[in-house]
């Protein structure tokens, strides 16, 4: 029995350098969190004060913490967003309430954010 092979050096179509693409397969794409945004969007001094606190907390304290918040967005982000949306007093109390809700017993009441593996509880 004769076996013959068809051999052609070049594939038809555009010559794609697939090895060149594979070169970057292990490259990391890290996104940098931006905690200065609330400072820029603050509308008054009190809000700016809380924005500075938020930045300080996120940069020097939260960055060294275990991943302990059960919610997404996290309690600090929730508070700063609530302050921006509803004003300083309402937002502060809302944030404090959220902080006391943030415990292992906080189940059954919240939908689950599967991307972050947390309970989803945005500012309303």
């Amino acid at each position, binding site marked *: 029995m004769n076996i013959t092979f068809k051999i052609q050096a070049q594939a038809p179509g555009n010559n794609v350098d697939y090895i060149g693409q594979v070169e970057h397969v292990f490259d990391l794409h890290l996104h940098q969190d931006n905690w200065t945004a609330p400072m820029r969007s603050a509308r008054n001094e009190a809000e700016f004060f809380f924005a500075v606190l938020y930045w300080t907390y996120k940069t020097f304290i939260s960055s060294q913490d275990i991943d302990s918040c059960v919610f997404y967005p996290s309690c600090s982000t929730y508070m700063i967003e609530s302050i921006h949306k509803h004003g300083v007093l309402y937002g502060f109390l*809302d944030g404090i309430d*959220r902080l*006391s809700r943030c*415990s292992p017993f906080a189940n059954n009441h919240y939908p689950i954010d599967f991307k972050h593996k947390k309970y989803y509880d945005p500012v309303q």
Partner: protein
Amino acid sequence: MIRFSKLSVFFTGFFGLWLQAQQTSGDSLTSKHDSIIRNPSSNKPAEKKAQDIFNLQNSKKFAQYLFKTGQYSYAAEEFQRVIFLNPQDNDTKYQLVETYIQLHNIPKAESYFNQFFPLFDTLPVKFQKQSVRLDVYSENYEKAIKKLTRSKLDSIDKQTWYLGLSILEKRWKEAGEYYQAHVSNPDPVYHQFGNVVLRRLGAKTKSPFLAGTLSAVVPGLGKVYTENYGDALMAFLFTGINIWQAYRGFSKDGIKSVHGWIFASLGAAFYLGNIFGSVKAAKRHNQKIDDDATQEVKAVFDYRF
């Protein structure tokens, strides 16, 4: 056993023949597979149809294929081109609006609809339904009801849609009365909506004022009332520990104790936050009962109407 093996030989023989047929005409496999994703009428020899694939008919075909395969943003582009080529094509306009609904871009869908079909009363039923649906998606329920009463829907559909819209508007009592008044409606969806109304009317709501008062008396009690027991425990502990620490600080160093003032302000914050949170939890509890009802109706508007 023998009979079985003979049978299997018989069938494997057929399988082999089939396989051979597949291999000898490799292209039959191609066309079979491609008919799902390619234009079925284009499997003709090339010289017979030097066709313009950007003309009206072909663009329409391609756009519909894109819509069916869920490539909505590309489909929207194509539908727009088709409408440009043939401004009288109402079905394509309808599909363009549907595409933007699928893309969750309701404002754009609405603006296109208003641009294409400015006169509501003269439209056929299909388009009137789409118009009302658009109002539902943008949560303009009052406007939707006004349009519905003017529309050409038959009376059965009109009753069903009206009941659905009054549920979305959260006019529970009125909806219940309306449902009882038109029980003879044969549409099963109408009765599904009716059940939603009856369930909502039977549900027990919580009073935000009572929740707040209870939390002011004993920290966390308001959250027990709204059935958030874990939150109640944590609120009680947070407030209690801070106030106890403040008490210790003040009793040791008097009124100038830094320790005392820090924990006192923390305790006060948690105390006030808990009152605030209890009111919010009661409102949230009521909101959830309402949402359970409206969610079901919204799903019907999404998938059936």
